[in-house]
């Protein structure tokens, strides 16, 4: 079980509003996810370095040469709301 405070924190970071009556359900679900991941602890990892990358290390850099960007219309075409050549988004303040 995950406590309700943790659910509230995650909801806040995710900018999600969660009704109080749904929280016990989420507590249980998140708890189950943690138990599922816990199984990894059963593997003996003594002497094994943490692995974040599976591709062998190699030089994968790009030269600093400009290529064409998308047109403004194309760039904006996936925006749900577009105003004055910009993506319009719900008002946020710094």
């Amino acid at each position, binding site marked *: 079980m995950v406590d309700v405070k943790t659910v509230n924190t995650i909801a806040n970071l995710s*900018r999600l509003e969660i009704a109080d009556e749904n929280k016990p359900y989420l507590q249980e679900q998140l708890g189950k996810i943690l138990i599922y991941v816990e199984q990894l602890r059963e593997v003996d990892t003594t002497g094994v370095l943490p692995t974040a*990358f599976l591709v062998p290390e190699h030089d994968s*850099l790009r030269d600093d040469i*400009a290529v064409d960007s*998308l047109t403004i219309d194309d760039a904006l075409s996936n925006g749900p709301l577009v105003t004055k*050549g*910009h*993506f*319009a*988004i719900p008002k946020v303040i710094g």
Partner: protein
Amino acid sequence: MQYEVVIGLEIHAQLKTETKIFCGCKTSFGDTANSHGCPVCLGLPGALPVMNRQAVEMAVLAGLATDCEIRDKSIFARKNYFYPDLPKGYQISQYDQPICEGGHLDIEVDGQTKRLGVTRIHLEEDAGKLVHDQDIDSLFDVNRCGTPLIEIVSEPDMRSPQEAYAYLTKMKKILQYIDVSDCNMEEGSLRCDANISLRPFGQVKLGTKRELKNMNSFSNVVKALEYEIEVQREILDSGGKIIQETLLWDANKNCTSSMRTKEDAHDYRYFPDPDLVPLMVPDSKIEEVRASMPELPVAKEIRFAKEYNLDNEAVMILTDSIALADYFEAVAKGCGDVKMASNWVMSDVLRILKEKQCKITDLKITAKRLSDLLALIKSDKISASAGKKVFNAIEEQDKEPSVLVDELGLAQVSDTGALEAVMVKIFADNPSEVERFKGGDKKLTAFFVGQAMKATQGKANPKEINVIIGKLLG
């Protein structure tokens, strides 16, 4: 109670690359909104970032210039946050394995040298620009999104706003010397945040820090720090506790306001970005970058003081940028007179740069032309005051100094015969002054020189006049 002030700084500098850090879109400033966007920087599904080689080399250069260790293998991490200035929902940055670590920088405050630690320099992408002044919505522009940044984090080693100012000035000079950033605070290519806390003198444990943001000039950093020191002092003196928070400096009102009211600390959930392989910087690359390092500010300052025998103020002015320092050196070598070169560069050249608001390399009065002009003055071909006229004329007309001397008729008359004739007439016109001179009133020399200048429209060589006065009246 007396408190010790503890300050650490974070500098974000935009790197002067042609393209963004993870895609080939241009980084140019001030273009039409959303004209520099592609699937990578717009965060479209499936697009993959590829690291810019130039940005890596610039970060290594910055690390070497501040005596950092360069990691042979550094890792990019995702910094997750919900704020709509990055379409991906996370910023690609570096976390526990940054490219540069453990450097330092020496500053001078009140004649004392102090070494300040540079904790780390890491690579990351800039966020896009949000426009908030709309009625209903905020507007997003992707152009700045993905511009390469280095974040330079200092140790909490500064003990006053003045030390912070000295650190910033010095770091900016280095970044400009190694040519990795324009460091233009107004355009946002250099940004600075400050962490500040107070603790009773003698206490080892650091006090709770607060972070100051939104200072758009170095002097505003000083003002914001001074303001915050007073605020924290009052809180502590009245028995209160400092709560860790981020404050925004308001330069118009000269005060701060709280940026985040939510009391939850940010949880960025950093993790290695699986889209980017580890960044490898082999020793051979480090040495290649080191070989490209120009003379750094401190080395140049010391050399200028020694080689040219200049005072500290002149050294600091003339080494302000590599371009100015190179210009001065070319003039000094060209005309063979350091004192003359430094005087002209610091007064006339800097004045004209200020008037024209241009780069020194754009001046019509090139180092070659100025040294030619100074050589003309030194060899008495023209007077110093005529030299100023020629100087301005070069900038206006884009012609060689010798050509302008002829065109403006400013060549100094040093022909003894011609000058003697002029003086004979002056003596004849001023018999009483001649009598007084002969009677011992040697101050009248200046009068006769003045008359000679008047008669020749300023072209007479004053040294010659003096000789002639001595010869004819002595």
